[in-house]
């Protein structure tokens, strides 16, 4: 589905990604763990073509897309749930969702968009109840659901999620990650960037650990959960217990 080779990207003179190589197979849930400032969000934004790479290759569905425009990526089935949700606060929930279907148009597409809309409502019933409420007035968890729903409205095959658990209560995080599993069962491929390592490794198939713009560890989710370095850095156990 997605294959990245030696990817380098950044902002002006600041190089954030220093040679990233990874792959995501069809139907997988892959996670990228890392601390603040490691470059996780930049990586997702580069895949979504919002940031242009300076070096390297991004292949999506077998096509080189490193120079594509953001709307090409959305049209061809790669949607981003941006960091911090980035909803349109002055628009209603329904308007926000419909905007996600911006790249679909024409009469036939309208029918498809309506199908997607009812699918999202059945997945997150609370959104149906609040569809005419302004998105800015929702709680954090509900806003995250709108953000996910909005990305799903373009009918993506690959869903990029940037810190979906950010600022949410543990029980809401559980609901969100359950929805991610449902999405995988419906045939979506998902790439999640997270800091909440324990929660995301429970649902992921594979994971990478990112540090200062490079991927330092790669492995199955179970392996990572038991990896001492990961435990020490991200699972908050006592440092000594694992170094002895």
């Amino acid at each position, binding site marked *: 589905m997605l294959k990245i080779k030696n990817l380098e990207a950044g902002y002006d003179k600041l190089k954030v990604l220093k040679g990233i190589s990874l792959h995501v197979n069809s139907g997988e849930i892959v996670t990228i763990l890392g601390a603040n400032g490691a470059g996780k969000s930049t990586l997702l934004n580069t895949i979504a073509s919002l940031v242009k790479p300076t070096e390297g290759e991004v292949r999506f569905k077998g096509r080189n897309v490193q120079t594509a425009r*953001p*709307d090409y990526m959305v049209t061809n089935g790669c949607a981003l749930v941006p960091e911090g949700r980035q909803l349109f606060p002055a*628009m209603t929930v329904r308007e926000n969702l419909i905007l996600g279907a*911006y790249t679909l148009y024409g009469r036939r597409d309208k029918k498809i968009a309506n199908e997607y809309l009812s699918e999202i409502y059945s997945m997150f019933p609370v959104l149906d109840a609040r569809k005419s409420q302004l998105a800015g007035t929702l709680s954090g968890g509900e806003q995250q659901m709108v953000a996910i729903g909005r990305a799903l409205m373009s009918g993506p095959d690959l869903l990029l999620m940037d810190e979906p658990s950010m600022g949410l209560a543990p029980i809401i995080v559980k609901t969100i990650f359950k929805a991610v599993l449902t999405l995988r069962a419906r045939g979506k491929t998902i790439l999640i960037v997270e800091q909440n390592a324990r929660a995301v490794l429970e649902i992921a198939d594979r994971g990478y650990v990112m540090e200062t713009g490079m991927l330092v560890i790669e492995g199955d989710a179970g392996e990572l959960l038991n990896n001492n370095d990961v435990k020490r850095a991200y699972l908050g156990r006592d440092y000594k217990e694992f170094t002895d």
Partner: protein
Amino acid sequence: MKKYLPVMLLAGTVIIIQLLTLITGKGFLLTQLTMSTWYVIAALGLCMVMGYAGQISLGQAGFFAIGGYTTAVLSTIDFSARTGTSVFSFFDSLGLLLTRQTIYGDTVIYLSPWAALIAAILIAGLTAWGLGVPVLKLRGHYLGMATMGFGIIVNRIVVGTKIFGEADGISNVPPFKMFPGFEISGKVGFRVGNYYFAWLVVIIALILLINLINSRAGRALKALHGSEDAADAMGVNTARCKTAVFIIGAVLAAVAGFFMTHYNGGIGPSESSVIKSVRYVSIVAVGGMANIWGTLIMGMLLNFLSLRGVFGHFDDAVFGIILVLMMMFMPDGFIRKEVFYSIKTLFRGKK
């Protein structure tokens, strides 16, 4: 059909106002009403750019002036001295050359304003495109500064260039004879006709804008206003959207400037001044930013009062004060639902 109900109400109001001026014998008021209407069209253009797409533009008067000066220059060229040249025969073969008598009884051959109208739209649109592509990459007050710079440039070019009449502006602009029996001019006989024609243009513009706002493109504009990064991530081509709405705003202003110039029979450099741009901004702000109806109502009211001389010497100051007060106390504008609700509860009492 429901979304056109306000438009029909508007058409009814327009007719009632005309009949009222007829009954009370104050037909002269229609002159200022017509002029306000042309200004309102320029304000509606800015409402799309600023209110809906969220792009601050302090150069709207520049586009108004481009429309006005294009026709003022083109339709005052006397072609009778140029008979036999290739330019003459080119326009003549298209039937675009007309003759008229000046007040001194000389016969003048001039270019049809229809050609000037097309030129005005093209020049304004191309200028907006050329300006918009680089400048709309800026955000917030940087964009405001850049567009204000554009407004100042237009103003200084107009004041400093001979063919634009320098500080005197251009007078003697011929009437625009649109079809037999009707012309855009300040003559008393065409006052009622001009009033209705101006409103016809407003209504056409409103219908187009309402459809645009409620379309997929309109949603993209609103999204752009909310968060440009998120709009990008949704696959909205934000650069193209911004440029397109900027061009729409500029063309509306140029059309307004074009008709106003023929209506007044001339145009002066004050139409291109930055103060005029600030006026448009304060009208859109009072109207509630993303609210074409608010812009329409407040634009009519304020321009009419201003043209009647109610504000006296403080004309420009009044618009400045309005803008300051609006930003301080009512940043969401005056014409909006909440204000009507509070007026309603005022009369009904609290529930």
